[in-house]
């Protein structure tokens, strides 16, 4: 239903601005906008306000590399220097006069655009002997391996780790699913030779397995993780992106097979011990990590 005010579908226009309309309604608003300056102006106000909700982050260099390749400029360095903060500032105001050579040599190495508020990375301290590693420590160790995005360390070591829960948090459903049927499905998948990855615990021994059941279904088998006390749950994380992404709660370890929808690209996994309601950023001890093969 649209706002009855005049002939302008103001409510639909607002939903349009946040991309919350279905296709038919969106087409109807498009048609209205084609003939209505007032609503076009209103829409501009909406999208400007919404644009304020987003800050800057540092895209991986590969994003520009692919753009450059697409536009016929392969090898063009990532625009932006490391030192100027990358904010939408005016070009340098002082400098050589128009007559002299003002060419700046291209940067020798690609540097991604630096977000205005980038903090200097704080090197994580090594964990005390016997203490479970924090997520930042794990990231530091991983960052020493070649091929990893270097700013994982900076992002994780800096202030609040912001987490986006992928899709949904499994919550209490881990216990509500019939454990026998989930376990059965998981074992069948293992028997059929589904991809298996292992997650190792703090002693380096495997404590959990991830079985790719195909068609987007995966199972986590908590083979060797202790049952947690009441009020706690294991939580699964993807460490593939710049910040850990929750892949759901795994329960307290007593149903030892849990179905987890693994998003494409989730290969670096970790399990932590958290409050039973789940958390938006890892807070508890990491009990298992590993890389799974998604071929």
């Amino acid at each position: 239903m649209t706002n009855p005010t005049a002939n302008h579908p103001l409510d639909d226009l607002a939903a349009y601005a946040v991309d919350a309309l279905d296709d038919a309604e969106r087409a109807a608003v498009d048609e209205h906008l084609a003939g209505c300056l007032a609503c076009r102006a209103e829409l501009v106000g909406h999208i400007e306000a919404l644009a304020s909700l987003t800050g800057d982050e540092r895209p991986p260099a590969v994003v520009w590399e692919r753009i450059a390749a697409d536009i016929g400029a392969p090898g063009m360095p990532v625009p932006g220097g490391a030192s100027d903060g990358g904010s939408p500032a005016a070009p340098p105001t002082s400098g050589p006069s128009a007559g002299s050579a003002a060419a700046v040599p291209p940067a020798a190495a690609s540097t991604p655009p630096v977000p205005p508020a980038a903090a200097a990375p704080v090197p994580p301290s090594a964990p005390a002997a016997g203490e479970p590693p924090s997520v930042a420590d794990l990231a530091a160790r991983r960052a020493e391996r070649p091929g990893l995005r270097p700013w994982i360390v900076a992002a994780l070591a800096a202030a609040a780790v912001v987490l986006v829960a992928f899709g949904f948090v499994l919550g209490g459903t881990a216990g509500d699913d019939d454990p026998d049927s989930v376990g059965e499905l998981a074992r069948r998948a293992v028997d059929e030779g589904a991809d298996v990855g292992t997650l190792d615990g703090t002693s380096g021994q495997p404590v959990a397995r991830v079985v790719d059941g195909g068609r987007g279904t995966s199972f986590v088998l908590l083979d060797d993780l202790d049952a947690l006390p009441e009020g706690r749950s294991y939580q699964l994380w993807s460490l593939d992106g710049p910040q850990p992404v929750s892949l759901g709660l795994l329960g307290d370890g007593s149903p030892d097979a849990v179905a987890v929808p693994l998003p494409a690209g989730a290969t670096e996994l970790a399990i932590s011990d958290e409050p039973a309601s789940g958390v938006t950023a890892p807070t508890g001890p990491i009990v298992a990590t590993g890389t799974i093969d998604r071929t």
Partner: protein
Amino acid sequence: MVWGQDAPNDDASLVAAVVDRSQDALGEIYRRYGGAVWSVARRVCRNADLADEVAQTVFTELWSRPERYDPARGSLRPWLLAQAHSRAVDVVRSEEARRRRQERDAQLDPSPQSAEVELEVHAAALAADVRRAVEQLPPDERDAILLAYFGGHTYTQTAALLGAPEGTIKSRIRRGLMSLRRALEDEGVTR
């Protein structure tokens, strides 16, 4: 190559230079706004690979069809973010539909979504000055906007998540956007 000091600086001129096939101009636009484009894509897609693709598409589209940007439709940054948001939402919805089909195929119970956790996450991701503005909104308006915008949910899904009628959600979004504009002004937020 650094965008030269004698080169046109305003966004409209940059886009005009892209029309003239200036790769450096596209690079400068990427330098200015690529971070924000990628950021909104990442927040909505919740997946770095998908975010990469969305960001890449926004800029290659700008290269192929720069004439689609009309300064009368607002300044370049909000326009690029709107493009990114719209593509990211499409990606998320087709992923979501695929996952639901697979859950049905595997006869797994679909898991309930939690509005509270999502809302916390979306609010936590805001910069401090913006978060102060958003916190000024009446809660029902704020929740509707955060879920619809960052969650990528349709108004129908948002209504289900919040346990409210669909028409109510649309009007909360509208009132929320009006409140947001005022609050951003009050907080002196400029982006």
